[in-house]
């Protein structure tokens, strides 16, 4: 099978402006991935499926990943001009200072695709796409018209992560009930408070059981069991 670099070159030759980016994977599995731009993703998908050499006719796995807003602290070397008194004379000297800068990296939702070829019996080729943010701009193009196997998996990602797939023929919740409002696999999802009886509470459960107890005590003034 072609390497990721070759696939990238092939995609860029076939789909101008595809803007494919290689995401290296440091794990020994060596499954590096290609990040696509949502605007060209469907064209790239058709190319990958129909190309003579690649023939990736089988979309095996499609899933979402949630990345929260992250505060990144990085140390930057900054050159500053400092006024110093050297030998009784005031001078302006360049000085290199290390500074910790913090910036917020906005969170995003990511979808990951694992492609194989049944005709050529090779794979996987891993693709990724990102949404702009986690709140309002969560649209990604659907690949269901290209690979039918995406149909339920995209519905699942929509259900659990809240990625909206444009072009999906039937985008409804897959696992949760239709009235449900949240996206429970997101990392900031808060579960409903139903920890009424916990004889063996631990870590997160302990915290939630405590919260529940406090809430109940505040409401009724009566204590219940953990």
């Amino acid at each position, binding site marked *: 099978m072609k390497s990721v670099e070759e696939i990238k070159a092939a995609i860029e030759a076939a789909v101008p402006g595809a803007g494919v980016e290689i995401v290296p994977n440091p794990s020994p599995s060596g499954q590096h991935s290609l990040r696509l731009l949502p605007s060209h993703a469907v064209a790239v998908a058709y190319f990958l499926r129909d190309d003579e050499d690649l023939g990736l006719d089988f979309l095996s796995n499609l899933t979402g990943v949630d990345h929260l807003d992250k505060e990144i602290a990085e140390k930057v070397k900054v050159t500053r001009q400092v006024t110093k008194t050297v030998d009784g004379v005031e001078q302006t000297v360049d000085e290199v200072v290390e500074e910790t800068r913090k910036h917020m990296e906005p969170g995003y939702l990511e979808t990951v695709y694992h492609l194989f070829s049944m005709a050529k019996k090779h794979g996987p080729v891993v693709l990724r796409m990102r949404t702009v943010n986690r709140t309002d701009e969560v649209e990604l193009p659907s690949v269901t018209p290209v690979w039918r196997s995406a*149909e339920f998996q995209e519905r699942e990602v929509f259900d659990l992560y809240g990625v909206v797939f444009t072009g999906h023929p039937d985008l409804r919740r897959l696992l949760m009930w239709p009235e449900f409002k949240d996206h429970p696999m997101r990392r900031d999802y808060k579960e409903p408070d139903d920890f009424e009886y916990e004889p063996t509470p631990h870590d997160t459960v302990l915290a939630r059981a405590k919260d529940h107890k406090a809430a109940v005590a505040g409401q009724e003034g009566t204590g219940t069991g953990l």
Partner: protein
Amino acid sequence: MSGSLRDTNLEGWNRPPVIVPDGEGELLEVAMGPHHPSTHGVFRMDLALDGERVVRLKPVFGYLHRNHEQIGETVSYLAMMPYTDRLDYICSLTNNWAYALAVEKLVGQAVPERAEYIRVILAELTRIVNHASAIGFLIQEMGASGTPLMYAFREREKILDLFESLTGSRMMCNYMRFGGCRVDPSAAWLDATRKVVAGLPQFAHEFENLLMSNEIVMARCQGVGKLRPELAINAGVTGPMLRASGVNYDIRKVDHYGVYDRFKFRVPLGDHGDIYDRYMVRVLEIHESIGILEQALKEIPGGPVMDPKAKIRGFRPKPGEAYGRIEGPKGELGFYLISDGGNSPYRFRVRPPSLINLTVLEDMCLGHNVADVVLIFGSVDIVLGEVDR
């Protein structure tokens, strides 16, 4: 498989046109499930019927959504192993293997030779259990209440006894570890397995005789629920269902995982892609599995079953990701793990063969009678624990 995909027109993948009744009467909408005696658990199909014929079928999932993926992201790598048992609860050992394989890929862990042989033996026993009970359930849904399922379960009990004496539990084995297996099977266990395996061909033969040429089975199954190979590939269908449509794709042959390339076995392929072919592919796979078992039990080497360098507690893989997959009895079972260097995976994803095989359920059922829907659904061979996770 005929030619490549490009000569088939998949642009119109959207379903065959809905048959609209001609004026008289209306479509009858039926919700089949979640409590329905024929479905394999809690599964619901919303059907629209024109008389007896199905004109629309929408599966509804989630009645057994147990949040495996969320739990996988909160507990440690080791603690997730027993949860994988409960994904496809008929075949816990293949689930164990798929998960162990994914983690081994993630950290580049080698597995001792003996452990690989044991894994093959257990996986093939599991495959026999699964296929036998799948056929039993299918025939039960056809109306033969009891007998075939009874025979399948009689054989299953024998294999389950082997699992219990090795792993400690009948169904939820929790046996494989990253870098090997938990306990070394004794010589007595291997002998007992040889004895059971020696009895299996007779069972397979009887099971075949019981049903294969039965006229009722043939009348109900042949030509019903056809699946075209092009659609099967495009819809990501895997396992016996894909092979029944005539696509030669068995991950044991393609990925060469474990020590499968040391064994001689054939991949049964169907021709028509109907219920009968799916059923026959499973029957033939039981025969092939028995062949693999005989070879594996003959050749099993000595040695450790666990890589001594493998870590069990405090397992923290370096950041990275891996997708590992095996040929489960139901199809391609994959685990996708992203590690951020922590105690538990950042993302834990199960690629469920049962769910994705159901993508084509509507296409297979359209135009058939309601009674056939139950059969077509049964021939997909799903387990709800894996569909909904």
